[in-house]
């Protein structure tokens, strides 16, 4: 178990991360989602013991650990834009094994194994300038898996990958987790991928764990419109109304369970009514949250919004990808922080 306790991290006096507790249990599959600049990469660097938090503690199996200590060898980070050493792919995969003093035969076995799982065996003789960005990313993941860490941290691991490469990566992670108790903590801005494989999806906003679910999170500029606490914010091509005393920069969240889904606009008190088209219907597993029968309806209503409804409601409304849909929600349902 890897934990951050009462952690506060600053860059040049600016707080970029503030967490009471963030735990990565043994064997867990965690996705951290959030907009750019929400602190995901900082969180991963602290968990990877590459930086010391300005305040707070990092614990590994209950013991306080620091950068430079032995625990760092149990945690491996693959950065968002990973870099390969000036060497062949094989030498890159061997690096972490050689620093651990592992014997030649075992090094070869693990390199071949990791390369096969990530589908990069044919790249082993190549050098970094001969690889595409997607290939570099797969090599970086293979390099991290080869050292068999307890915790693997991945920062936007499929940002440079095409769909097939992304599936190869997720399959490799699943195989590795089936083989041994590997905990994976993945930072992503793609909710689809996060939900596809993670047991636990957590949202970060402005360096803090979001109190709401990670869907429909937006960084906005709130503008007062002269009528009390009713504020407006432009998101995509639409304007969302929210009840808040805040103005200026803020994070706005629309809980998916608070969105009414219909085929036609409803005559209601909802200040936010948007018409659009269904882009996907996803039956998602939400470990431990009783998500059985819930369908996540993603629609493009000028901005991408996600609503959660029941399977029966999907049938009654005859919702289908490409079909028309109306999303409505009250200004008071919008969370602002």
């Amino acid at each position, binding site marked *: 178990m890897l934990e951050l306790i009462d952690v506060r991290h600053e860059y040049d006096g600016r707080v970029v991360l503030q967490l009471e507790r963030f735990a990565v249990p043994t064997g867990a599959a965690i996705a951290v989602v959030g907009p750019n600049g929400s602190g995901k990469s900082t969180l991963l660097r602290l968990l990877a013991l590459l930086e010391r938090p300005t305040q707070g503690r990092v614990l590994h199996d209950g013991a306080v650990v620091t950068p430079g200590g032995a625990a*760092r060898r149990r945690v491996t*980070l693959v950065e968002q834009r990973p870099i390969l*050493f000036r060497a062949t792919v094989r030498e890159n995969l061997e690096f972490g094994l050689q*620093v651990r003093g592992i014997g030649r035969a075992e090094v070869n076995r693990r390199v071949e194994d990791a390369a096969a799982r990530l589908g990069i065996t044919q790249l082993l003789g190549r*050098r970094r300038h001969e690889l595409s960005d997607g290939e570099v990313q797969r090599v970086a993941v293979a390099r991290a898996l080869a050292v068999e860490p307890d915790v693997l941290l991945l920062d936007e691991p499929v940002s440079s990958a095409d769909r097939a490469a992304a599936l190869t990566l997720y399959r490799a992670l699943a195989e590795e987790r089936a083989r041994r108790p590997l905990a994976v903590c993945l930072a992503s801005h793609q909710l689809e991928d996060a939900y596809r494989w993670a047991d636990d999806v957590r949202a970060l906003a402005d360096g803090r764990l979001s109190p709401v679910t990670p869907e429909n999170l937006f960084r906005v500029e709130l503008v007062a419109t002269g009528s009390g606490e009713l504020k407006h914010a432009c998101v995509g091509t639409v304007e969302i109304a929210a009840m808040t005393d805040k103005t200026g920069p803020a994070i706005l969240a629309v809980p998916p369970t608070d969105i009414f889904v219909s085929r036609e606009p409803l005559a209601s008190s909802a200040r936010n009514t948007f018409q659009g088209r269904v882009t996907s219907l996803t039956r998602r597993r939400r470990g431990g949250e009783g998500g059985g029968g819930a369908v996540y309806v993603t629609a493009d209503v000028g901005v991408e919004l996600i609503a959660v409804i029941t399977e029966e409601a999907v049938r009654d409304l005859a919702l289908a990808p490409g079909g028309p849909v109306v999303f409505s929600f009250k200004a008071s349902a919008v969370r602002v922080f």
Partner: protein
Amino acid sequence: MDFLAEGFRRALALLFSGDAEVYGIALLTLKIGIISTALACGLGIPLGFVLATRPFWGRRAALTVVNTALAFPTVVLGLLLYALLSRRGPLGAAGWLYTWQAIALGDVLLALPIAAALAAAAVQGVDPRIRRTAETLGAGRWRTAWTVAREARFALAAVITTAFGHVVAEIGSAMTVGGNIRGQTRTLTTAVALYTSQGDFGLALALGLILLLLALLVNVALQALQGRGHA
């Protein structure tokens, strides 16, 4: 122009005849150059590494001192070294004044800040992800430093070339603490200055050509080494 052409003819004749004095001077210069470059880079490159990577109190001041030392006039360096090595100086007991060791010491002091400043710049030029990647893959402090150095190897090779170039081309300190003694402390640069002042232009030119040849050979050797490692 006849004078120049004659000078070149004489130079080539001396070079190809294997003139003992010419080659003696060249070999001494090479010996001093290699030893002082090795010492200066052996100390300066790790110092540059520390300046570039380890946060410590006074780091900025240390960088300023190193960068200022880059412009230290060699004649003044020779003068200070003379004061230290002269019989009445604090290092007089070593008996190094007017020896090749004194020239080498001056060259080390000259090339040390060059090696440190350029090495610091070379290391700072390495993508910070290299360091983080080495660390997250389990490398300790030394292995991480070695990995960063490997990434900067082309720039670090340039550091060695530059240091060697400065050392073999230096004259102010070599003249002051070496004394330009024939057969003992006469280097290519001090000999060129002497023979030019004596009007022996051909000999001066021959030595000058050897100096250029040395610089060329060192560069070619380093480029050949760099060529072995592709990106």
